[in-house]
């Protein structure tokens, strides 16, 4: 298995053997509607999987994301960090599931899906699920849907940063844990944010 691959969904499924690792990332840009379906089996001992993904939406997009990570072998590691900004009339659903099979002891799995709504009519539904059938596992998951912090916004504006710029700064920092490494990812995200923050 290769490292750091960028996937062009709709669907991708992988089986990782002992000691193998896989890094995936995806992004959904303004105007794109997508169904993303990722399924990863950690089938050999010590395999690891990392997913980073983000979406920036501000029109009529419909985005459905489904991630299933199945820990089948002992001492595998997985992380998922998916953050998104939804404006306009965008509709997003995130359905993330981590399954830890019997015998997959020493599993270390995490999943976060954080969202910021920048319009009143955007909709995000997020359902993280854990199914754990093994002992001695470390699993965490978190999901949030919120709005930009008004106190931060005013503080930045009071220093002369225009409202739109202030929002872009806040959103870039919010997205950064989910951006694939490197300057290009951040620049692309920033350009997309400027498009939706009119």
């Amino acid at each position: 298995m290769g490292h750091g691959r960028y996937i062009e969904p709709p669907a991708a499924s992988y089986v990782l053997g002992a000691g193998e690792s896989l890094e995936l990332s995806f992004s959904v840009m303004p105007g794109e509607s997508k169904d993303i379906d990722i399924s990863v089996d950690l089938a050999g001992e010590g395999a690891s999987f990392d997913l980073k993904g983000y979406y920036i939406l501000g029109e009529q997009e419909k985005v459905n994301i489904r991630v299933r990570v199945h820990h089948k072998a002992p001492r595998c590691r997985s992380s998922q960090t998916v953050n998104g900004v939804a404006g306009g009339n965008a509709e997003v659903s995130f359905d993330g599931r981590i399954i830890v099979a019997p015998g997959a002891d020493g599993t270390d799995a995490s999943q976060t899906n954080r969202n910021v709504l920048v319009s009143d009519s955007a909709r995000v539904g997020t359902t993280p699920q854990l199914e754990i059938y093994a002992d001695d596992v470390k699993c965490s998951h978190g999901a949030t849907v919120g709005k930009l912090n008004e106190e931060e916004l005013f503080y930045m504006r009071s220093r002369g940063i225009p409202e739109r710029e202030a929002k872009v700064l806040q959103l870039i920092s919010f997205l950064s844990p989910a951006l694939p490494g490197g300057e290009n990812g951040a620049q692309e995200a920033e350009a997309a944010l400027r498009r939706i923050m009119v």
Partner: protein
Amino acid sequence: MQDILLNIKGLCASAGEKEILRGVDLEVRRGEVHAIMGPNGAGKSTLSAVLSGKPDYTVTGGSVSFAGEDLLALSPEQRSWAGLFLSFQYPVEIPGVTISAFMKAALAARRKAAGLEELSAADFLALMKEKMAFVGMNPSFSKRPVNVGFSGGEKKRAEIFQMAMLDPVLSILDETDSGLDVDALKVVADGVNAMRSPEKSTIIITHYRKLLEYVRPDKVHVLKAGRIVRSGGEELADIIENEGFDKF
């Protein structure tokens, strides 16, 4: 250049249904330092919030002119560009945005509004370094997210640093002295004193006389129940310190 920098006339403002400012009158000339003192709930922080354009308040009457402009017609960012600076009583934490990125964005916007080119990276760094040294901030703070994990004193120091970076015409210090030890208080005082000039003015909002021992005000006002009920010189701060606000 107009002699009167800030002219507040009959300013009334409310938060929701609650009327807080009930006709504030205040005239600040260029070069002056004014202190506004008052008990809790008098409207001191509301006054600074309204002057800086905080959206949570509604102005229900009166007028404010700043350097000849209608201040209340400007957005918070436009007020900053015009030279107004508020040092927050509770500086806001901005996770993920470094002090350096924050100041870069602030200066770039300000210079753009003034029709100036953006500072070069080298000039910006030199300016940051100079102003951090001025307030005794460790240069490593420039890479830290704004106010995140700062102690009370560090936050106030960072406010004075921002003030020095933005070089305002009118600085409003909202209880910048509260909760500071003497060393931090001196940093604040030195910052304010160093920026005193015949063109610039400062309003110090405070409960206590302590800061006024280091920054000597030209005028002292007592704000009570949403109005300025007494104005005078430095001696007024002594009377308040000794006798409290009840007599006003």
